[in-house]
């Protein structure tokens, strides 16, 4: 049974003896600017835009690669544009932010139990970082040779 008074706060003044007029605070669309924790959360979510940007850039690069050496050289020239470099540096920071927050949060979703107890989250997150470094090194080695 819900006694939610939909007009609470909007109806005419007057106290109803059998049902008080509750005040319903309004949540602003700028709620995420109200607190640092909320802002950090929204920035983390917006890192997905940097992820999508990287994929689109990569698809353009593959398309230029396919078209031929001239198209590829032109694409590389575009990448050298200072504005493009700046956008890529910002994207890189966001993507690394994604990686770090992802690895740090994953252990809460998949707790590892040993000896009847939950392992500390930092310990569970550590192998992800190791894997990240190793895989990055392998990619570097393949691309640079």
């Amino acid at each position, binding site marked *: 049974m819900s006694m939610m008074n939909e007009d609470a706060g909007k109806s005419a003044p007057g106290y109803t003896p059998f049902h008080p007029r*509750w005040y*319903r605070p309004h949540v602003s669309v700028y709620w995420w600017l109200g607190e640092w924790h909320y802002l950090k959360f929204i920035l983390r979510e917006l890192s997905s835009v940097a992820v999508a940007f990287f994929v689109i850039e990569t698809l353009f690069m593959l398309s230029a690669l396919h078209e031929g050496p001239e198209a590829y050289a032109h694409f590389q020239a575009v990448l050298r544009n200072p504005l493009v470099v700046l956008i890529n540096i910002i994207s890189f920071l966001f993507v690394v932010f994604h990686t770090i927050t992802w690895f740090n949060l994953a252990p809460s979703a998949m707790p590892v139990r040993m000896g009847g107890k939950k392992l500390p989250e930092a310990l569970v997150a550590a192998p992800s970082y190791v894997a990240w470094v190793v895989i990055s090194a392998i990619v570097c080695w393949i691309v640079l040779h």
Partner: protein
Amino acid sequence: MADKITLEIARYSPEHDQEPHFQSFEVPVHKEWVVLDALNHIKDTVDGTLTYRWSCRMGICGSCGMMVNGEPKLTCATFLSSYAKNGEKIRVEPLRYFPIVRDLVTELSDFLAKLKKVKPWLLPKDEPPLAQGEFLQTPEQVDRYKQFSMCINCTLCYAACPVVGLDPVFVGPAAIALAQRYNMDSRDQGAGERTAILAHPDGVWGCTFVGECTRVCPKHVDPAGAIQQYKIAAVLDWLKSFVAPRGA
């Protein structure tokens, strides 16, 4: 440290007010006083109409949750001295994202309805006969759900969660954590009965892992962790439903 501190307390009377407003009170700072002591002092000696919930004053009943300087806190566990030494005022408001009944009292019936919907009680399939004796659990079996059982229903997590504020039908951190407490209990076989409400867009899928609920929880329940763990279980369950279709 100053010997007095100012509390700015949200007041709202449904009989007279259209919206809440703040009223300032000066209270003495005693080393051992918490915000709840200050509220009781005001009610006893200054303004008897100040209305708020409290009970055990030791952090176990979950009644005295309020916003203190914008943070959800148990007022029985928040010391005046931590604000006094910085020369700050203390702003006390009712818990965020709930309708306000009067002054610092929030309307909890929506939360209680959500809690009831997740069936936070043991649902054993076949009740063994009494003669068989008690359920036995190893320490490991207890450890699987113990953290989630520490919830005192204080609703600080609801005041911290922006999704609760933005989406009134979201089931919410404490209810999901408590459902998971029973799903993880070896004596319970009711996980299937909780699927409809939990693995629903208004259930766990509305959660975007902001993590504020876990940060403010006074009993370290980690509701965010409980929710993400349930999401993984729901994904496995969803995949299994294709391999082994179940009846209605």
